[in-house]
């Protein structure tokens, strides 16, 4: 690992100030991703700003503003604590399941909620410094586009990058219409709708998200909803646990008698950002919650997929996973 300066921030303002002044600095929260990337020489910050001691860890009910009655999750709270908080388990079980589907117990004990959003892709070409990668070194090309791209995107990719976002938590957050609260360089707080937080690669894959230089995630807000009775997070992977998703689905339904009043479906492991399946959602509104309807709804989204050479299987897998997740959601999200 290359030498770097270690600084410990005492409050959010000073953390943001240091990060704004030094473009080569990075925040250090859980460290589970950035330290790995530094050991691999993929990321080379000359300064790490330890923000683990900032008082941004609470999970609480939002008392005012647009998301009143919803829940606010501190940017520096641990994934484990967010997943197990009574407010989250009771009212947003989809988020609990999604967080617990990711990584291992040890990593969830370390990783923070804000850090989860900002983790980098696990594309093997991004990790291998001997390979071309536009995300790691803009202008060098994409090794995965015509390489081994079994794990890669089937939606929204560009010729410059076919990587996928690795988070499970974020798939649930985009389905739940969350908002990212950010402290900007001028000390003011701004809000970014979750769907606009992560980016598609376009011709700038080095930029994963729309966070500005030096900006710090202070909290993630989830508005109140009526999905708690019928939601489920399904993750399909190469081994039973502790592996990244081939395809994952966050599914949530709100019923009006026998008919679907509102549906939320997002897919992970298929794009550069957590992918909201808007075609599936639109199709389901006003329909009965039958397996046939779920399959057809899944088809509506998946027919737009553009698979690469080695990941054509993700299209069929995605269809089945969406239908199965919706069936499980109807079953109360029980395993």
């Amino acid at each position, binding site marked *: *690992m290359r*030498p*770097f*300066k*270690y600084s*410990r921030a005492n409050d959010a303002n000073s953390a943001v100030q240091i990060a704004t002044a030094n473009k080569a600095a990075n925040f*250090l929260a859980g*460290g*589970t991703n950035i*330290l*790995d990337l530094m*050991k*691999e020489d993929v990321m080379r910050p000359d300064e*790490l700003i*330890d923000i*683990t001691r900032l008082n941004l860890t609470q999970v609480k009910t939002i008392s005012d503003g647009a998301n009143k009655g919803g829940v606010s999750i501190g940017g520096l709270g641990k994934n*484990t604590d967010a*997943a*197990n908080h*009574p407010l989250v*388990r*009771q009212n947003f*079980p989809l988020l*609990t*399941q999604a967080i*617990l*589907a990711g*990584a*291992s*117990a*040890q*990593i969830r*004990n*370390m990783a923070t909620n804000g850090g989860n959003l900002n983790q980098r892709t696990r594309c093997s070409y991004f990790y291998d410094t001997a390979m071309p990668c536009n995300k790691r070194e803009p202008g060098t090309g994409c090794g995965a586009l015509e390489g081994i791209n079994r794990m890669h995107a089937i939606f929204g990719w560009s010729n410059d990058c076919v990587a996928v976002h690795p988070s499970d938590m974020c798939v649930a957050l985009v389905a739940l219409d969350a908002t990212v609260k950010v402290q900007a360089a001028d000390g003011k707080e701004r809000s970014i709708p979750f769907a606009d937080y992560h980016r598609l690669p376009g011709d700038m894959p080095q930029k994963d998200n729309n966070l500005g230089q030096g900006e710090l995630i202070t909290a993630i807000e989830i508005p109140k909803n009526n999905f*708690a009775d019928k939601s489920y997070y399904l*993750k399909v992977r190469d081994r*039973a*646990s*502790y592996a990244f998703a081939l395809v994952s689905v966050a599914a949530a339904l709100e019923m009006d008698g026998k008919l679907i009043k509102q549906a939320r479906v997002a897919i992970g492991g298929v794009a550069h950002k957590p992918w909201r399946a808007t075609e599936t959602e639109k199709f389901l509104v006003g329909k009965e919650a039958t397996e046939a309807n779920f399959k057809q709804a899944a088809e509506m989204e998946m027919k737009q997929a553009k*698979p690469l050479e080695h990941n*054509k*299987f993700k*299209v*069929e897998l995605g269809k089945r996973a969406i239908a199965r997740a919706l069936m499980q959601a109807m079953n*109360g*999200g*029980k*395993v």
Partner: protein
Amino acid sequence: MTEEIQELDLTEDEKKLLEELAFEDLNELSDFGEARRQFLKRMSVAGGAILAANLLDGQQIFAHSLNESATANIENVVKVAFKVNGAEKSLNVDSRMTLLDALRERLELTGSKKGCDHGQCGACTVIVDGRRVLSCLTLAATCEGKAVTTIEGLQKGDELHPVQAAFIKHDGFQCGYCTPGQICSAVALMNEAKNGEASYVTADVRLKGRALQLSDDEIRERMSGNICRCGAYPNIVAAIKEVHTGKAQAQTWQFVGENDVAIFENESKKEDAANETV
């Protein structure tokens, strides 16, 4: 007699050992035949002790020199004080130093193992402030004021921690390299279950706040961050379940039957057909 022993070309240590072994008749060593073999046999029994003494000596010298070189060449020094297995420790570390390296190279606690060094295997698992974490992805500099428990800190006096004892009873290892991490992980797991924390395979995450009785599936899911290349998993699950339930465990298993094979083959055919239509 002295001459005869010298003929054997013994070192001072060996001579001393010879006396301690209390040969009834040292003359038997004068014959280089049968007696020599007997001598070597007795030596090999005692040899373990000599080897251990030498190693201990060497390790102390080694650890000492590492300590010195580590402090001589460090960059971006961070002073950090934390508790390790109940004892206060204060170190000047390189900002790059992980908690794992601090434990192993600076504090001579080599129980925690460096497997992959990338957070993929769990061999470096330790308990920090009551939570299991990966010491290979934790910077020592961030540990200021924290309490670290390693495998060396689990037993009370001469008494093994119940999880350690259960791992021995159930053969929860083969080569043993992943074991310190497995055990630290399992110890923390017991508390998580007691606190009612959920996992991805918990039947209903909305039911909360009470101690959980963990099924084998729950234990496997909760231990998935600890990889065992020897594949001692069934034994590890049995050991954990025994401590968790307080009841003696016996492993159950069965051969794969013809039905299982048929199901697998049918599924494979279906998958192939699906792939062809894509």
